[in-house]
Structures are given as C-alpha cells and as structure tokens.
C-alpha cells in the first residue's frame, strides 16, 4: 500500500503500522472538525452548517491532486489503486437509504464510530444499527442479489466517461468545489439557526 510501494517493497508490519497511523490521523481530523456532533452533521441537510461539505470535499480534492502529482513523478502506480465497481441501481437505492439514515440518525458510518469513541450513547446505538443492517444484508442476499448487481458498469472513472484528461477533470472538480463552498456559505447565512451555533 501507500506511495513508494512501486519503488520499494514494504514489509507487512510497516503496511499495518501505516494503516494504523492513517486511521488515527483520520479520526483525529474528524474529531477536531467537530463531527462528533450530530447537530453539525445534520446541519448539512438543513443548510445551517456546511462543514461536512467543506471538510470531505477538501479531503477528496487534496487526495485527487496529490495522487495525480505522485503518479506523475512515478511514486504512485495508479493502476494499483482500487476503483469502485459501479452498479447503477445499487448506488441509487443505497444512496437513498444512506441519505435518509444520515439525516435521521445524524451520523454516517465513519463519524458514528468517531462519536462512539467519545462516549455518545446515540452514536453507539447508531453503529449497532449499522451492524444490524449489514448483517441483514448478508442474510437476505439471495433475495436482493438481483437488485444489488443490476446494471453493472465496471470500475468507471468520470474522466474516461467524459473523454477528458485526468488533469482537466481535476481542474473542473476543484473549480466546482470552490463554487459549491461559496454557495454553501451563502446558504449558511440564509438558514442560520440562532439556537444552534457553530461551536459544539
């Protein structure tokens, strides 16, 4: 895993240690951004708090730009980076379910674990619900298999579908992100709720 693995072969313990450190960093970043607060997370949908959009989108853009540069300098082999398989129906249905769950519960899976680790009971129940849902999925797999594997498109990349170079796609996405941040800040002012502040 990790960049440099195309230049050197890392021992397994180092891979696992790296994974641990990255996980620690991720949890730290989520917590300091305030994502243990379900009010902050649900604020994304009500409009008064756009932190989720900014944090996750910035993380995605940094990863995108960073991996493109690393690939250009020969440090990262992008052919070995996993690209999600795209099942159209499953993505749509799953997205609806997850969106509903997000706004009802006020957590998503990663931030749920984050909040659980600081002791929030509602987060613990949320994560337990998540496990139950996953268990239910596997147990009912024979019945929903048709739905889950319908409309398979393979591991597609957006820039391939649009027929543009990866670099140009990066630029467009970054510009779109900047525009969305600006819109989000306008929405924050418009939908602000006086009893819920930006602090936890």
């Amino acid at each position: 895993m990790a960049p440099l693995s195309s230049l050197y072969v890392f021992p397994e313990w180092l891979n696992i240690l790296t994974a641990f450190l990255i996980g620690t960093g991720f949890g730290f970043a989520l917590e300091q951004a305030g994502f243990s607060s379900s009010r902050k997370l649900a604020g994304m949908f009500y409009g008064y708090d756009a932190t989720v959009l900014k944090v996750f989108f910035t993380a995605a853009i940094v990863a995108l730009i960073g991996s493109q540069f690393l690939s250009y300098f020969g440090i990262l082999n992008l052919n070995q980076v996993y690209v999600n398989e795209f099942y159209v129906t499953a993505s749509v249905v799953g997205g609806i379910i997850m969106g509903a769950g997000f706004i009802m519960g006020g957590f998503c899976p990663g931030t749920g674990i984050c909040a659980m680790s600081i002791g929030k009971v509602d987060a613990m129940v949320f994560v337990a619900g998540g496990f139950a849902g996953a268990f239910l999925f596997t147990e009912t797999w024979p019945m929903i298999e048709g739905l889950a594997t319908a409309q398979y498109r393979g591991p597609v990349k957006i820039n391939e579908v649009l027929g543009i170079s990866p670099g140009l796609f990066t630029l467009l996405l970054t510009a779109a992100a900047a525009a969305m941040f600006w819109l989000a800040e306008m929405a924050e002012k418009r939908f602000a709720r006086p009893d819920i502040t930006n602090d936890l």
Partner: protein
Amino acid sequence: MKIRKDISALLVLLSLILAFLPLTANRSFTVKPDFLLTGVLDEATSFTVDQVADFIVREDTGFLLIDLRSAEEYRKQAIPGAVNVPYSEFIRSDPEKWLGNRQIRTIFYSAGDLESDYALVYARGLGYENSYVLDGGLTEWITTVIKTKFTGERITARENALFETRRRAGELFTELNSLPDSLKMKYLESKKFSARKLDGGCE
C-alpha cells in the same frame, strides 16, 4: 478565517498545473538510463535454446516463457508452456499482471530477436529485473531443437545429454502443436493469465 480562501486558491492553482500535464494511466521507466543500458548490453540477459529446452524437459517451474507473436501464430505453433502476449498488447498495458511474480524468471521470445529485445528492455526499464530473452527466438528453436541431427561416429556423454534433451523437447513441441484444434485451444486457454482483480474497500 482568510486561510480557507488561501488554501482554496492554492488547490485551484495546483489543479490548473495538472490540467496542462499529459496524464495517463501508463507507467514510466523507474531506472536510470545508464544503469538500464549496462544491464541490457550484458550477455547474461539471454538464454540459449538448449537451456530453455532443459528447463522444459526438467519441468522447472521457476521460469515463464512469454510468446510475443500474434495470436494466430501462437495457435499454429508455440513452445510448450509458453503464454501468449502479443507485443503490441504487452507495451500498451501494465505488465504487472504477467511479470508481477518477481521470483520467476521471465523469458521473452518472438519469431526472431527483434521484439523480444524490445520487450526485454521495456520490462527491465519498468523495474522487472528478472527478465531475459531466448536467443534466436522460435526460428533458432526450430533449427536447433526440432531439426537436430547428430552426425559423426562417436558421441561424448555431454553431447549425448544435450542431444537427448533436444529430442525430448522436440517431442513435447511436436505433440503439443499437432493436437487437434479443440484440445489445443483448451490447453492454451488454461495458460492464459486472468488479470488479478484489485481488492479494495470503502469507508
């Protein structure tokens, strides 16, 4: 909170630089030119047909033969145990799926020498040190191994061993290549590589 505007501007600027780069999914050579050149000009990069015949007869599993010719030529005639990767496909895709096991010696061959030489340098340039060529290609194989004849009155033990190896390899070659098409296809298909799918997860 002006810092967020600075960071956004920095990211936009970096992505602007990226927009002008000719990014592709293809890999680039990782070694230095003089190192690569010295390596490929070395004689230790080729195996003779006798050495390869020996590997085949002894069923040595530490090596892999890659046939760089087109699919039709491969179907007509091929060295037993070779896998077909047409040269144009070899340079177009990521060779990791064929050369990924770095413990195994990969030996390239084509009809003559040209394409196997190209492939050797290409593979070594991408960092696959364990790549070699079959000296003379299939032409040399047919001349030396298949059409081998012994002339003279007496034979030394070493020559005898060589002759036996050639004969046995020639038998295997003729056996494989004279199979009826359906059986042959089955054997050849079983030798194809299927690209290893990447594992991955999500959040």
